[in-house]
């Protein structure tokens, strides 16, 4: 019996000595304020998306997802030598969809970062959950100003975006209307969505500052088909321009019905990036001729190469506008993970959630497809040039008219 105790203690001491002198295997201790994600040697890095990939606005989200997939291809399918696992939920471009999709994603603790959402309304519902779950959330297409406004209830920790803030787009649209179109008064229509409401508000403020007059700011329901009552209301103010930064089908129906509303036959119509889609051409038919939209201006050799890859992989030109933004979002996540991840000898990856957020917010002079990106303290990373485009019947994409 004594012999056994002796042997055991010798073995114990020996093992302690050996461990101390052998290769350093100090177990990783997570000191991160909001926890860590541990990824086993053969496990993938889990990136999720929350985009609108089904239903009427699906081109917006599918286009972004295509951008992510190309970014994964360009990274060789790997982040920090781990495979990438990409899956996600449909957000439906609505608060309800954001709520249900966000709930599902928030329950999955393997997720490192979420790319999404597509629409600002989705973000408002999903962010409380995704932010509490400790994820980095980076949106390729949310543009509502309040999401990144310091002190605003809708500004959540860990949320960033590569899309432009509508404060920029609304201002550019107002400047375009005043300087290029030379209109003096305008009416605006929104559809009750966070995106459209804020954008038309920014437009109206800037247009008034420039010296213009807003005849009326009104709204339609996104499912409304008969626009005659709202157009009759607008016609009483005799505006030279109607600005309606909304979506399809309501946007398409306004284009078609404005032409037949007495008093609005020659009024200039203008939308925003929500109506930058091939579907606008098919839906509005011949009436699309002359319709203006504002949208990010994407140029450069890197972007052209991206479009070529898109064409090869998906067999068509980009179907919406936020593919490059999603590509940049993924690349920023990849860079940040590779910066903060602690790698064990066996290849296990430890990612501190707060550290990852800090690294994302510290992104500086990041060279992306949409420009050189630098994130500010509230999560606005975009460096956008907004252009104005004009549709011609049967042609997509619309022609760039400003700036020339």
């Amino acid at each position, binding site marked *: 019996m004594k012999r056994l105790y002796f042997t055991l203690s010798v073995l114990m001491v020996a093992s302690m000595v050996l461990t101390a002198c052998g290769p350093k295997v100090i177990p990783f201790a997570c000191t991160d304020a909001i926890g860590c994600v541990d990824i086993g040697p053969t496990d993938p890095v889990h990136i999720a998306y929350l985009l609108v990939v089904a239903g009427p606005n699906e081109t917006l989200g599918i286009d972004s997802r295509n951008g992510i997939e190309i970014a994964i291809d360009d990274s060789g399918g790997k982040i920090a030598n781990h495979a990438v696992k990409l899956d996600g939920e449909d957000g439906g471009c609505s608060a309800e969809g954001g709520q249900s999709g966000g709930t599902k994603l928030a329950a999955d603790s393997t997720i490192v970062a979420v790319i999404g959402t597509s629409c600002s309304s989705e973000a408002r519902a999903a962010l409380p959950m995704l932010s509490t779950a400790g994820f980095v959330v980076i949106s390729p297409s949310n543009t509502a100003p309040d999401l990144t406004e310091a002190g605003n209830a809708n500004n959540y920790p860990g949320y960033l975006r590569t899309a432009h803030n509508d404060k920029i787009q609304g201002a550019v649209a107002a400047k375009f209307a005043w300087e290029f179109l030379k209109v003096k008064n305008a009416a605006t229509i929104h559809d009750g969505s966070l995106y459209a409401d804020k954008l038309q508000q920014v437009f109206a403020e800037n247009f008034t500052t420039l010296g213009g007059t807003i005849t009326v700011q*009104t709204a*339609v329901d996104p499912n409304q088909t008969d626009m005659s009552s709202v157009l*009759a209301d607008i016609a009483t103010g005799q505006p030279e321009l109607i600005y309606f930064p909304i979506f399809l*089908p309501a946007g398409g129906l306004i284009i078609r019905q404005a032409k037949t509303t007495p008093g609005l036959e020659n009024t200039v119509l203008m939308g925003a990036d929500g109506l930058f889609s091939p579907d606008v051409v098919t839906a509005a*038919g011949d009436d699309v001729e002359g319709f203006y939209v504002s949208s990010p201006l994407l140029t450069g050799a890197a972007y052209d190469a991206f479009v070529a890859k898109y064409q090869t992989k998906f067999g068509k030109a980009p179907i919406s506008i936020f593919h490059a933004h999603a590509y940049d979002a993924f690349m920023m996540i990849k860079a940040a993970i590779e910066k903060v991840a602690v790698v064990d000898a066996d290849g296990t990856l430890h990612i501190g959630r707060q550290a990852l957020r800090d690294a994302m917010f510290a992104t500086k002079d990041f060279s992306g497809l949409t420009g050189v990106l630098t994130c500010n303290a509230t999560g606005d990373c975009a460096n956008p040039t907004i252009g104005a485009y004009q549709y011609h019947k049967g042609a997509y994409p619309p022609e760039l008219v400003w700036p020339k």
Partner: protein
Amino acid sequence: MLRTWRQRITFTDIMIWAIGLAIVGVVVVGTIKTLQSGKYEPSVWLDLTIKGLAVGGVYALIAMGYTLVYGILRMINFAHSEVFMSGPITAVFLANALAQSGFLNKQPLLSMLLITLLSMAVSAVVAMLLERIAYRPLRYAPRLVPLITAIGASFFLQYTFRGLYGSGFKGYPTVTSLQGTWNIFGVEVFKTQTVVIIGAILMMAILYAIVQWTKIGKAMRAVSEDKEAAELMGINVDNIIVFTFALGGVSAGAAGILYILLFPIVWFYMGFIPSIKAFTAAVLGGIGNVPGAFVGAMLLGLLESIGPNLFLDGLGILNPSQLKDAIAFIVLVLILIFRPSGILGERITETKA
């Protein structure tokens, strides 16, 4: 006399009357204020009225599908919205092909006839398949079963068409000869709206004639009265039910083409809103009653079209146009409170209900 009268009045009655009077009061005050402000020219009201009648005509034809099926089977065919959608979403391909070849503008009448026929045929076939596959096996099941099946069938059809044609929006080409206005008795009226109103009235008249004056219409009414007795009289009830669904489908297909003359954009989800309105119209007029559906639909179309500007604008309510659905459904609630069987509704007896 006074005593019995006072005993019959309950607290609920008083509340309901109070709500009704409050709504009527709001409508009257809003109307007076709007008219006093003089914001809209008389011609605007006329435009809105005609547009309302046109939309009402479309609702009426869709409502026929609900009301005919309800009359015979005492069930609400909630998949009728997809019967309505299937016609125009298929015919858009023919319309665009005709437009590209230039035939549409050379022979507008013939082209529109072809497009309408295709739309009617597709809608009728979908309606008949629906009856055969989804409803006939459940004919003697409890009443809730076919209702739930209808909702399931509705989703199935929606996503089938989404799979077939994609989820994007497609536009109908504009018919050049239907652009602009006609001068009718000194009033400028849009050609499309006139065509829609005339088309809807014509189609309604045909349907009414079929139900009232043909042999098969008589059989339909017999089946509606009493299925067993009709069967004993030698009427093939199955055939009559299939015919009813086909008739509803043809009517929905025609409604689809009139609808796209007003709102020329189609997609797989387009059926939902117009059909829920048409269903409202059918209930408004008295479900199961053909002229009732027409009256209800016209009333609903008018209220929706002029309601927001007339009732709400004067009260200073922001974005009144967003509330047009609210107006439509408040009218429905009012009608159901004061005339539960609808404007022209039959008093439903115990045996029938």
